C-alpha cells in the first residue's frame, strides 16, 4: 500500500475555557488517499470542524493541539512545521472552504483584489497574469461575465455566488487537498445542489482529495465515497458511504439514520433519546452510552476500541 496523502494520528485538540477544558477533538485517527473524498459527519459539538481546522493548524488560544498528535501530509508532519512554512501549505497544498460564504469574504475589497492576492501569494505571477488567472478561475466555477465581476464587491454577490468565489480561491493553486466545512449549510437546496455539482466536477477535473464536513447524512452520500462518524470529539464508525448508510453498525449511526425525516418515510421517526452531552463534562467511557439502547456497565467505564470489522469498515462499540 502506498503512503496515504494525509494521515491523522491521535489528534487531540483541547480548548482551555474559563468554564473548563473542552476536549473538542480527543484522539482522532484516519487516513485519506490521494484523489479520494472523505466525509466527516457529526452533530454540533462533535469536533468535526475543529478536526478540519486542526489539519490547517488554524487553532488559536485558548485552543491547543496537544503533543503526541501527528498530522502527516505528503510524508511530513504538519504539526512540526514552522509557521511560515505552514503558511505556504495553506491555500496552496491544502485549501479550506468555510461554512458561511456571506462572512468569509472581506467586505471592503473587490472579488478580483481578493482572488489575485491569494494567487500571487503562492504563485510567482505578475499582476496582469494573476488577473487573467482570476478570470479563468471564476469562469471555471461558473460565474458569468467574470471580466466585469472581478471589479465587484462581495455584497454585490448572492450567497451561492460567494461560495463559488471562495471555491475559486480554494482551487486557485491546484491544492492536493480541499477541506470543505459545511460549505452548503447556509445555502438553499437548489443552490446547494449547484455547489455540490461544482465541487464534484472540480474534484474530478483537478484530481484533488476532498474532506467534506457536514451534519447532513443525505448530502454526504452524494459527494464522498468514504465517511467517518464523529461524536463528542471521537470517531465512532468508519466505512464506505453507501454501505455505512444502508447498514450502520454503531447504535449512534443507526439512531441518526432513523431520526432523518427523509422524503421517503412518512409517520413517526425513531429518534435517539436524550440530549447531546455538555462539551465541558462529557460522559465517561463510551461517549454515547447515556443515550444508547444497548449500553452496559462496561460501556460506562471503558472507551471501546476502534476495531476493524472487515475491510474498510471500522467501529468503536463493544457490540462488535
Amino acid at each position: 500500500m502506498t503512503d496515504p496523502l494525509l494521515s491523522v494520528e491521535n489528534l487531540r485538540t483541547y480548548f482551555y475555557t474559563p468554564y473548563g477544558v473542552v476536549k473538542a477533538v480527543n484522539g482522532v485517527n484516519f487516513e485519506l488517499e490521494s484523489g479520494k473524498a472523505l466525509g466527516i459527519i457529526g452533530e454540533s459539538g462533535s469536533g468535526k470542524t475543529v478536526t478540519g481546522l486542526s489539519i490547517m493548524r488554524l487553532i488559536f488560544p485558548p485552543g491547543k493541539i496537544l503533543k503526541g498528535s501527528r498530522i502527516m501530509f505528503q510524508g511530513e508532519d504538519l504539526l512540526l512545521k514552522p509557521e511560515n512554512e505552514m503558511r505556504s501549505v495553506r491555500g496552496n497544498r491544502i485549501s479550506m472552504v468555510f461554512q458561511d460564504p456571506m462572512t468569509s469574504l472581506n467586505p471592503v475589497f473587490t472579488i478580483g483584489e481578493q482572488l489575485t492576492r491569494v494567487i500571487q501569494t503562492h504563485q510567482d505571477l505578475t499582476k496582469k497574469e494573476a488577473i487573467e488567472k482570476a478570470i479563468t478561475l471564476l469562469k471555471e466555477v461558473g460565474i458569468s461575465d467574470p471580466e466585469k465581476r472581478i471589479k465587484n464587491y462581495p455584497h454585490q454577490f448572492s450567497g451561492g455566488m460567494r461560495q463559488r468565489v471562495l471555491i475559486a480561491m480554494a482551487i486557485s493553486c491546484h491544492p492536493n487537498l480541499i477541506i470543505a466545512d459545511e460549505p452548503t449549510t447556509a445555502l438553499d437546496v437548489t443552490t446547494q445542489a449547484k455547489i455540490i455539482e461544482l465541487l464534484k466536477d472540480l474534484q474530478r477535473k483537478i484530481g484533488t482529495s476532498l474532506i467534506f464536513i457536514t451534519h447532513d447524512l443525505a448530502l454526504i452520500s452524494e459527494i464522498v465515497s468514504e465517511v467517518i462518524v464523529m461524536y463528542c470529539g471521537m470517531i465512532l464508525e468508519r466505512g464506505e458511504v453507501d454501505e455505512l448508510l444502508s447498514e450502520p453498525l454503531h447504535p449512534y449511526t443507526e439512531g441518526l439514520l432513523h431520526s432523518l425525516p427523509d422524503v421517503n418515510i412518512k409517520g413517526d421517526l425513531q429518534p435517539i433519546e436524550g440530549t447531546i452531552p455538555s462539551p465541558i463534562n462529557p460522559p465517561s467511557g463510551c461517549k454515547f452510552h447515556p443515550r444508547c439502547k444497548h449500553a452496559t456497565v462496561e460501556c460506562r467505564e471503558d472507551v471501546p476500541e476502534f476495531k476493524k470489522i472487515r475491510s474498510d469498515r471500522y467501529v468503536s462499540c463493544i457490540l462488535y
Partner: protein
Amino acid sequence: MGETLIDVEDLKKYFISSNFASRLTGREEALRAVDGVSFDIYRGETFGLVGETGCGKSTLGRTIIRLYEPTDGKIYFKNTEITSIKGSSLRKLRKDMQIVFQDPLSSLNPKKRIMEILWEPLRLHNICSEHEKERKIFELLELVGLSKADRHKYPHELSGGMLQRVNIARALAVDPDFIVLDEPTSALDVSIQAQILNLLRKLQNEFRLTYLFISHDLGIIHNMCDRIAVMYLGRIVEVGDWKVFENPMHPYTKALLSCVPSIRKESRKNKILLKGAVPSPVNIPSGCRFHPRCFLKEDICSEIEPDLKEVKKDRYVACHLYQ
C-alpha cells in the same frame, strides 16, 4: 375534506422602507414579501409551507396570526374575518392561535425562569388561578417531556431541544386550535429534531391541533404534512397533498424536489439545476415571477402572471403549462 379553519384570500404583506431622504425624493421602496396568496387550512390537518430563504413563508405565517398588519387581502378564522380586528377581540383571538419560532433560545426571555415564562399566558388569559398554577405548569411540562425540576431554570441553562419543548408548552398553555410552526426544528441537531417532530405529532393527535408547518426542509415537510404549498418569491406556485412529492407539476417544485439529497442510492434523481439566483422581492420580474430561471419558459411567461388554478382534484398550480 374537513371543515375549513382558516381561509386566506389574496393576502399581501409589503414592507415599505422609507427614511427622511427617500420621502423627500418620493422614492419609497416596497419589499413585497407576500404578494397575493390564497389558500385554505382544514381543521386538524398539518398544512406545510415550503420555500427557500426570502420567499416570504415566515412573513405569511406571521401575518395570518396577525403579528404583522396585512397590507391587503382577507383572513378568515372559523368563518369570521380577522384581517383588521383590534384591541380586545384581537387579544381574544390570541388564545386560539399560537406560534413556535425557529430559534428556541431567542424565543424565550432570558431574564425569566421557565415557570414565569409558562405562567405568563395562563395569567393573562385567566386560564387558571394562582393556587392551581403549580399543578397546571407541571401538567404542561410533563406534556412536552420536561421534568418538574426544569421550572426553576433559566433558558440559558437548557439545551436547544429542551428549550423548544418549553416554547411548545407555552404555545399550548392557552389551549389553542391553531399553531404556526415557523421552522421549529431547523436550529436543532438531527437526533433532537426527530424528538421534537414526534412530540408535535403526538400533541396534534391529543389536542386535535391544526398546524401550519413552515420549513425549507422538504424531508420534514413530507414527513409531517397532509397538504403542502410551495412558495416562490411571495407567491404560492403549487398546492396539493403528498402526491406533490411523487409528481410535482410546477417547474419550480420539480427543480426543488430534484435537488433534495437522499441517503438512498436509488432515489437520487437527475438534478434540475436552476440558473441564476432568486431575484430581490423589491424588484419582482414581470409576468410569471419564476420565468427568468425557468427551464420550460415560453413567450407568454414573461408577460402574464399565471393564477393558481385547480388542474386536477385538490391540486393547484400557477403555471401557464397547465392553463
